[in-house]
């Protein structure tokens, strides 16, 4: 190997290593840029942003009442879950409707933390005037979702 070859060999190896270092450094820079500039990039809309919403769900579905006599207690639980980044004071209502009546039977406000779930027990007595098929609707006004619903028939339980 001549001095020239030796020098050029060293230079070539150096350049090759430089290319390799550039590739790895590029990956590191991309990672650091995304991590350090996360908020900035998210504000610019170029990073994935999870959907923020509230969801309602009924708990313990098998124990939902299906036939209730007027005056009897009706009990169930439902959950409000949130994927929002801030705490929400969420109003909720329970409405009973049948062919001829519509009645608010329970309501309240639940404090739902960021990414948290809150379970709310509901208990009320079936109104005396309710008759036939009755629908129970559990709503969360302002949340953008349809109220949960289940059906009962009134009669002797």
């Amino acid at each position, binding site marked *: *190997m*001549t*001095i*020239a*070859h030796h*020098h050029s060999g060293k230079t*070539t*190896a150096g*350049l*090759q*290593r430089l*290319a*390799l270092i550039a*590739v*790895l450094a*590029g*990956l*590191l*820079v*991309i*990672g*650091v840029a*995304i*991590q350090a500039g996360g908020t900035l990039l998210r504000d*610019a*809309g*170029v*990073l*994935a*942003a*999870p*959907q923020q*919403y*509230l*969801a*309602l*769900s*009924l708990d313990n*579905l098998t124990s*939902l009442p299906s036939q209730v006599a007027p005056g009897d207690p009706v009990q169930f639980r439902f959950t409000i879950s949130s*994927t929002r980044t801030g705490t929400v004071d969420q109003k909720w209502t329970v409405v009973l409707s049948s062919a001829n009546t519509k009645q608010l039977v329970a309501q309240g406000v639940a404090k739902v933390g960021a990414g948290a779930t809150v379970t709310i027990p509901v208990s009320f007595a079936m109104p005396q005037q309710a008759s036939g098929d009755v629908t129970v609707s559990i709503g969360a006004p302002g*949340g*953008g*979702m*349809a*109220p*949960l*619903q*289940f*059906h009962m028939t009134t009669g002797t339980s």
Partner: protein
Amino acid sequence: MTATLTMPIESRVERGRHAKRPSAIARLWTQSATTVTLLILFDLAVATRHVLLGSRLCALALMILLPGLTVVGATRVRLENRFSQLAFAVGTGAFVLMLWAAVSSALLPPLGVPRPLEMWPLTLAVNAISLLAVLACPSGVDPILSVFEGRRSRSTILIATGAVLLPLAGLAGAERLNNGRGALLDLIVWLVVLLVLGGILWRTSRWTDTQIKLALFGASLTLLYLYSYRSNNLFGFDIQQEFQRFSDTFRAGRWTAPSNGDPYAAMLSITALPTALAKVSGISGIYLFKGVFPLFLAWIPPLTYGFARRWFSPLASAVSAIYLIVLAQFAGELSGISRQEVGLFYFALLLVVLFDVGLMGYRRTLVAIGVLAALTVSHYSSSYVAVALLVVTWLGFSAVRVVSTWRNRRSTHRVRRPIQKVYVSFVIAFSGLAMVLIWDLGVTSSAHNLTSFVSSMVDQGPNILPHAKGSIFTRWLSGNVNQTISPSKYYRLALQASKHESWLNPYPRSITSHFPAAAAPKATNAGLGYNGLASALESIGTVVGELFLALVVLGTLVMVFRNRITSVPREVAVLCAATLAFAGIIRVSGTFGEVYNQDRAQIQAGMVLCVSLALGISWFAKRSHQLTAAGSIVGLIVLGVTVPAGGTGLIAQVGPGGSPLLQNSGTSYNYSDMTDQEVAAAKWLVQEAGPHPLIWTDEFGELRIWAGTTYAAATHTDLTPATIDQGSWVLATGYNIGGTAYGEVDNEVSTYLFPSAFLGRVKALVYSSPGARVYR
């Protein structure tokens, strides 16, 4: 350098002759220094992956490249082109990981390592494999630096930088659209991609092959990212099921051959490979499927270019590769089918290694068998087609050789023609066949697709264009696709089909008859509304597509019947003829279409037929004397724009709209985009429903269940009042809430009004968010 110039020549020669040979230790150090350094960096990256995203990216890159480059170095395989060599190293790296995952999952649990696909066992394995491989490399040769050898011009560095930045811009554009910030950036990126493709054609005479390949890679990856980064979840149909199988392997920490013959669970490309990468790099499976798998697919156009370039000019080869990129199914469909992204990558690599001039004799055979093995464990259909083409080519070319030999013996006065060299040998073709049989029948028992194809063929024959209607010309243009039917016909057909389900407990007709089928609400016009112009442009695109097809047919015919006037080996002509026949059969045969989607088959066939297209284009260019080169290129661009613009839905945006690339609505969007709310609702449903639930959704609703849960049993998709079971659960998607539902019965599809009034009447609404619901 100064010393060299001032030294007399004799002295330099003398000095060179007596230069001290490096010692064995020095040679070993030269050979392994880079690998050892990178392994240390890899281990550091793995250890710090929880803290730094950059560490995760480095660990991911090194995990594929280190075993790949060192094993390739140890095998002493040198392909003709550096770009192909790098692709081969990446393919080898992925194959080594798949192979190790399968072998370690079988052998290590009995030895006390119950989860061999966890981070540390895998990190140890990558270190051990890379070190052993580097020790087996030729003495004094650094297997890693040798890939980066040679000088790179400024323009190459500029193109390489563009090939990195443009996909990142595409990613940013897709995320902006996901976040409801409009499609402007998407549109700009898309136009830049088109300009790049036009620029490639413009500069083919000045750019090197490596530069053209880099530009092709960047353009294809950008188009792929514009699709794959849509949605916060995975975007597409098949990819949802693939992700489910990956999740099963990821949770188990080992890969096991499926006990139920499930072909998805049998493919290492979507189970063992992403599990290994996710465990070691710490990058989530969703982002591996979105970001890493498209990298495999993006190699295909440059590899295809390299394959055609063996015999044709850069311009003809570039047109062939670009035509593959701009086909609608390339980015639009394959970005949502990860198993095929890996499978087709190996198929492209197979074509390159089969005909690479750097590989000779037994080494070519061994390398081809290795690539075929990688293809076999990656994707079943791609490997069936590859093996079938190889066997037919071997048989066909053997017949040609027999005839040539016979004619040579008989000829007395003519010049004897030399017997042509064999690329696809008996050993390669039948090793492929043997590996498919061993893997799909012996190891994974997952040949259901193949056996059902054989029985369908026996029962109904090829079943030519079973679903198409209209003239023979229209039927040919439409191909083997589903037909649209009215909502009422869909309700009727769904009811007929449900009669076979004796266990079904439907609602009484006294209730269901009050809820007849109705049309879905009209979609809002998201396009510019120039429907006539859009239709005209689409027609031009169809004509251009058929013209390209005519060029492919012409090129193949010339290769087969006038082979002497071309530079293409007759064996390649036989391969192209077999591929063209295969593409034609897939387009018209219902039986073939059931086992292999015609769009995807077209891409696989296109990788071979790029040779025919390149020949057709060369032939056309030679005979169009009146056209200058610039005129031809401008003509190609102007005509070519209509094909990609149609394929990606840009033309549709000029008319009524509907491209998922540019809007957050429309059938394609509903089909491919799983929202966070839908996935959360599906998770809640599966968790609440307990074992063996009856779940109903519409045609695309089941994708949300695959995307969010491990529920793999059949979901019922005939969501009509008369066909829903009384005890069932119903998942409603975001577009269902908007009123639209999709159904399919016997390859007939329908869009209809989601039966929310019926469900509200008979079922309880037990889960509700603004973008999804569950009824019980």
